[in-house]
């Protein structure tokens, strides 16, 4: 066997060894947990009933900046956050920002009583089967997802946001327009 052939064998062998070993040390990008992990992915949408009795979904707001808030009436932080959400909706509706409430698992009667008591006027979907909660990896309630006009998740938040945090969350998208 020539020296050259021996070298070729060694190089080929080492290359294969490197490929094989590298496969077991595959380091993906750091994995974010919860709704934040969805940033950059297409926002899934499901057809459910809305509070006004019609069918509705996230997809029908494509073309808007959507501030999707998952909530339930039994959740105290959701109740605390609602007045700021309503204020934010009123202030930014004219700038193509939609606040979309998605109630998790409750009947229309409960959701409506809650919305009426807090003077909520933004659209609300009733997700009885908690599909949005599952797919958006909610770690608790409230959970907020910011979606750009193309339907791509911009950011995800676990827990209640203040008015200033809501404004800060959509500011980059408003600048991009």
């Amino acid at each position, binding site marked *: 066997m020539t020296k050259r052939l021996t070298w070729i064998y060694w190089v080929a*062998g080492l290359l*294969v060894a490197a*490929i094989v070993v590298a496969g077991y040390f595959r380091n*993906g990008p750091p994995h974010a947990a919860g709704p934040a992990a969805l940033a950059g992915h297409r926002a899934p949408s499901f057809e459910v009933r809305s509070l006004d009795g019609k069918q509705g979904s996230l997809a029908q707001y494509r073309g808007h900046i959507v501030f999707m808030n998952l909530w339930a009436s039994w959740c105290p932080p959701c109740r605390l956050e609602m007045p700021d959400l309503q204020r934010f909706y009123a202030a930014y509706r004219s700038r193509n920002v939609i606040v979309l409430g998605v109630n*998790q698992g*409750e009947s229309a009667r409960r959701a409506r009583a809650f919305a009426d008591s807090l003077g909520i006027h933004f659209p609300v979907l009733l997700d009885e089967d908690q599909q949005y909660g599952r797919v958006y990896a909610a770690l608790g309630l409230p959970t907020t997802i910011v979606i750009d006009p193309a339907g791509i998740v911009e950011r995800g938040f676990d827990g209640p946001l203040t008015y200033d945090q809501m404004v800060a969350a959509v500011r980059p998208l408003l600048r991009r327009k």
Partner: protein
Amino acid sequence: MGSLLFAAGAAVVMVAIQEIWPGRAVYQYGWYNAIVAASIAYALFRMQALRRSRPGLTGAAALLLLGAGVVAFAGIASGLLGPGPHTVVGAPGSTVHDADLGGSLVFPFLQSDHAGTGSVTVDLRRAGAVQVAIPPNRRRYVGGFILWQRPRSVVHVSVRDARGNHLTITQPTNSVFLSPVLLMAQSTTIAGMTVPFDSFAVPAAARQVKAVLFSVQQAAQLHANPPLDGLPAVLFAVSTSGDQVLPGGIGIVADGSSRSIGGLNLTAKIASYPSIVVVSAPSFFVLWIGMAIFLAGTVRLAIRYRAGA
């Protein structure tokens, strides 16, 4: 020459077995991998002897040994570096990250969570790699791993209060917080029967609920009232948030039916849903390259041997 061929072939066969019957614990034992390595070392030793006695066969033998070495290395790397077999369980609609795979498994919704047995495809997504679909009854080779579906029973639960209001279900101790689908990933023993169980919360009613799943055979031994009509069933135990079981808080519900237990109206629907089995295995691509080199070397060796080299 025969002993060289036998030793190299033995190593190749021991590794190929890992691909054909994946996931056996024995592949990760030190002695198993030591035998593979020793076979290659012995073949190498025999090649040195062959080089002196039949120099004309050395090139073909080296090719054969290179192939066997590649295969053996892939096998040993898988056995010693690969993680142990494990099962990834996810709720319909959830995405579960698996650090060993360096990616996430996306578990789809069933056509309906209420539909009996579902046939769904789970997807593996990894950064910078093509998405891999894992359909039922098919193995998928992904780098140094083999993945396949293993169906398991899950329970879709629906809860209403006394006024008929639908209530939110949460699973604070499970991977998916907002899911009405119980994955029944734990097991317990009741009346000598090993049964899967899970738990969930109904925050609007300040209730905790434990759920135990009984198969058709197990349910038949329960003598429940009303009778379960040959269906699998779920036993619910409703307690306060302080874990005090309520009066009338224990009851059994047949698949697809509802019952008032501890002030909650509970509906249980049992479905089959896949989990994903992940086992490390020799890299499919490297294994086949090694096999091809090994076979080419074997054929060349036979030809050279016949030619009297």
